[in-house]
């Protein structure tokens, strides 16, 4: 029954194949079925969002794609090879910014360069350019605790981008930001994606953010975590903030809301 969900996918060799993936966490209070029977093919350079309420297995799936966690059943492959640990060319942004307190902003961004023994001088330029692009040019030598939450998250994004990864996995990167900063960073992210042709998997629980950014949205539900429907978003690029005021945007929003409703995500609204 999961096969027909992929009918929207065209192309012969998907970059990422997620096939019948389930994840069970063993815990003292019994096993937790975090994700069940997820199937999805992602093309190279595609922007895919995982959208769903908390606890539906978004982070779990992202970690498995990033090779940080193993699948319980099913298989995930990247460019034809099964995922076995974090792949080359991976950039990750986590739900928390996880900046290292003992490093300055610039040093935090340079961390992946140092860990991977990449050319220091060349990436130092890139790091500085990125930080300036994200409005942090005056904060290169500050420490993380001297920054606001929004600035910290931007540093974390620069850190994920500094090695110019071909696969970017982002776990609610803008979840903790105010709406204005969020809009600004959405546009920035779209820019970077359009210029670099990265494949991006983007986790969010904001319906409008998902519609705004994605080529496809994978709508999920919890207990157990699962895919309900995959929606293709057909807006031309680059999208501006004004796209949110179009009737088509409202249609997409309504559609996602109805999918959530019919799967019991907004239960208290019915009561």
């Amino acid at each position, binding site marked *: 029954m999961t096969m027909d969900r992929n009918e929207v996918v065209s192309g012969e060799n998907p970059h990422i194949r997620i096939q019948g993936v389930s994840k069970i966490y063993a815990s003292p209070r019994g096993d937790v079925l975090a994700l069940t029977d997820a199937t999805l093919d992602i093309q190279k350079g595609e922007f895919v969002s995982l959208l769903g309420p908390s606890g539906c297995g978004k982070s779990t799936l992202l970690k498995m794609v990033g090779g940080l966690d193993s699948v319980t059943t099913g298989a995930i492959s990247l460019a034809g090879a099964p995922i076995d640990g974090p792949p080359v060319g991976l950039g990750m942004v986590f739900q928390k910014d996880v900046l290292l307190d003992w490093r300055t902003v610039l040093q935090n961004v340079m*961390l992946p360069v140092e860990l991977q023994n990449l050319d220091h001088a060349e990436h130092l330029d890139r790091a500085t350019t990125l930080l300036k692009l994200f409005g942090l040019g005056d904060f290169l030598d500050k420490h993380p605790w001297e920054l606001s939450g929004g600035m910290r998250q931007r540093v974390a994004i620069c850190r994920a981008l500094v090695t110019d990864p071909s696969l970017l996995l982002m776990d609610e990167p803008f979840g903790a930001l105010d709406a204005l900063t969020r809009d600004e960073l959405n546009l920035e992210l779209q820019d970077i994606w359009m210029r670099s042709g990265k494949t991006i998997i983007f986790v969010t629980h904001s319906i409008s953010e998902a519609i705004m950014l994605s080529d496809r949205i994978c709508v999920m539900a919890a207990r157990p975590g699962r895919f309900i429907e995959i929606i293709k978003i057909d807006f031309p690029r680059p999208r501006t903030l004004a796209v949110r005021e179009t009737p088509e945007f409202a249609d997409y929003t309504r559609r996602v809301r109805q999918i959530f409703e019919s799967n019991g995500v907004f239960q208290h609204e019915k009561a």
Partner: protein
Amino acid sequence: MRKLDVPSWLREPPSWLVLTSLLVLWQVATWVFKPAPFLLPDPISVGRALIANPTMYLVNAYYTTANTLIGFGLSVIIGFGLALGIVYSRFLESTVYTTLVAINSMPKVALAPLFVVWMGTGNTSKIAMAFLIAIFAIVIDAVLGLRTLDTEIVDLGRSMRGSPLKLLWKIRLPNALPSLFAGMKVAIGLSLVGVLVGEFVSAQHGLGYVIMAAQGAFDTPRVFVAILLLSVLGTLLFKSLEFIERRVIPWHVSQRAVSH
């Protein structure tokens, strides 16, 4: 209701003022109550005892300090090495760590006489006591520091494909430093106690030796000089560590108020 206008030096008196007042109080008390000098000498005679033979105190303080620092230094190096082993090896964790925790619960000063039998009355037995008594604090705090790492930081390091050695050097080690310093600040005082106990049992020099010799001669002022020197020494050692800590981990929460 308005607060009374208390001057700041009285609301929050500086430590030199407190200490001087205590000395004055002690002096006045000995004048008033006139205790036998071998029970409680007055500060002036204690001062005289110090001035009478400063070199003798200096030489003995030197031995105590040197042995404390050597024992402490060894406990830091070996203790941190052990902690690394314990964190990275299940085998060492279930053997060495279990043993250490078991030994830690016994009063280690009880071993001092044994150490003198094994290692003689020279410096070695004092250094060994300082080492033994301090290493537990180092190992336990270092293990804690090395282990306490956010799972998200662990994931971050792995996602960047760092080698285990690089992850240790760039992430786990700096992350463990605050905890290691907490352990060292406990250990430095313990090292001094260890040396002192060794000197009490049997020694030819050191401030503990001075105390034992003076006590045998009922020369209580000399005992007091040695005790005062020991507290100055303890404070200096601790403050030096704090000084180093401020320079090594200025980024840590505990240091930010100081450095900014």
